[in-house]
């Protein structure tokens, strides 16, 4: 079987195709890429600059998508099983690492333990709020409108623009807003 297509599933598994593979990348670049020597801290620094493709106000680190970093391996986890951003995130991380010279650092995806909104960092929660998305709160707790700060809010729809958000409205300022669902 001579299958050289970049199907999403192959990309996701990082089977040595395209951007997931440093060796292929090296072949594709006749000139040497810069080499970075920042180690783990340097890799974290790069990851903090990679925005989530759906909510660009927060980084993949803020969202708790990055589970671990070593000098040669970044482990990430998808938010939702069917989240279409998962592939884009892996690609963006690969590109950012390559651009910063971390060509030999692999990116792998782990499903377990399952991602939870508890892993969103305090900075991430603050950034979501500032961006106009209410950060997750436990079921039954008051949802605060990110526009005007009122707690007089009501759910409109259990699913919002993406699977990870539900749609709410504020009764005080009459604005609709997204709530990042507790997951």
């Amino acid at each position, binding site marked *: 079987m001579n299958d050289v297509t970049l199907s999403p599933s192959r990309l996701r*598994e990082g089977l040595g195709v395209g951007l997931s593979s440093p060796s292929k990348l090296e072949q594709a670049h006749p000139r040497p890429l810069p080499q970075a020597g920042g180690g783990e801290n340097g890799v974290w620094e790069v990851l903090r600059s990679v925005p989530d493709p759906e909510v660009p106000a927060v980084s993949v680190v803020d969202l708790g998508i990055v589970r671990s970093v070593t000098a040669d391996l970044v482990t990430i986890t998808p938010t939702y099983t*069917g989240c279409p951003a998962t592939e884009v995130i892996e690609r963006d991380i690969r590109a950012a690492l390559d651009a910063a010279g971390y060509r030999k650092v692999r990116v792998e995806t782990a499903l*377990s333990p*399952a991602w939870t909104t508890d892993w969103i960092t305090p900075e991430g929660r603050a950034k979501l709020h500032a961006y106009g998305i209410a950060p997750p709160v436990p079921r039954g707790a008051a949802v605060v409108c990110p526009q005007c700060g009122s707690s007089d809010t009501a759910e409109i729809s259990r*699913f919002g623009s993406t699977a990870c958000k539900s749609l709410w409205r504020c009764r005080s300022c009459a604005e609709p807003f997204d709530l990042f669902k507790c*997951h």
Partner: protein
Amino acid sequence: MPSLPPIRPEDEAAARTAPHGTGAFDAVAELEPGILFNTLLRLGDDSLILGQRLGEWTGHAPSVEVDLSLANMALDLIGQATLFLDGAGKSEGQGRDGDKLAFHRDVLDFTNCLLVEQPNGDFAQTMARQFLFSTWQKLLFERLIASSDSLIAAVAEKAVKEVTYHQELSAEWVIRLGDGTEESHRRMTDGIGWMWRFVPELFEMDEVADAALTRGLFTDLTALRPEFDRIVGAVLSEAMLEVPGDQRPILGGRRGHHSEHLGHLLCTMQYLPRTYPDAVW
């Protein structure tokens, strides 16, 4: 297109007495090495077919909020299917991935339960199907977290949170429509009535499920039934609906005996990758 297996006299005799679809299973002798493959295939096919069905609503739902809900549930299910079917392909070792299994198998090779391939009908029928399936899938995934297969366990652990949401959302609609107007009540009664025939299959244990259970990959489906009945009974009661009486069970989806509806679904789903086999995004 594979041809149907030959009908042997003993199969015919068994089919006359047993419920539809419980006849002898020719492939069982070849299954031994493929227990994991078949288990992953069943899990993946359930999610794939229901995901495709829900996708049919996109742009047609009663309101934009409902449209989003159905599309997002479809996305969760397709995500499950991708993981399960990619895993199935890997365990098979024949170079097939999730896309190959989804788009290049014929209807006789699909192992989903009959419930998920039932037509959408009206919104009430869709929600009746979703409620019965998600209630079952949640109970199933809660147990599969303990599977001896790390992929099944990881997907179950991850997806059970999403399925909980599907179950709550569909239960709310069953109650809202059942305990709504005269017309919405009638439609939800019809929806549950249509889907109820396919409930017994969800709890069927056959050769593949038994073998998977023995290996610790799977769980005893019959043990889920009391909890399922309790949850469904409570929701239908709140929805002012009767729990339908026992019916002659219709089985066979797990062994490739499907209703006419699945072929039509596959025609739409598989058209592009089969017409242009090398097409990629």
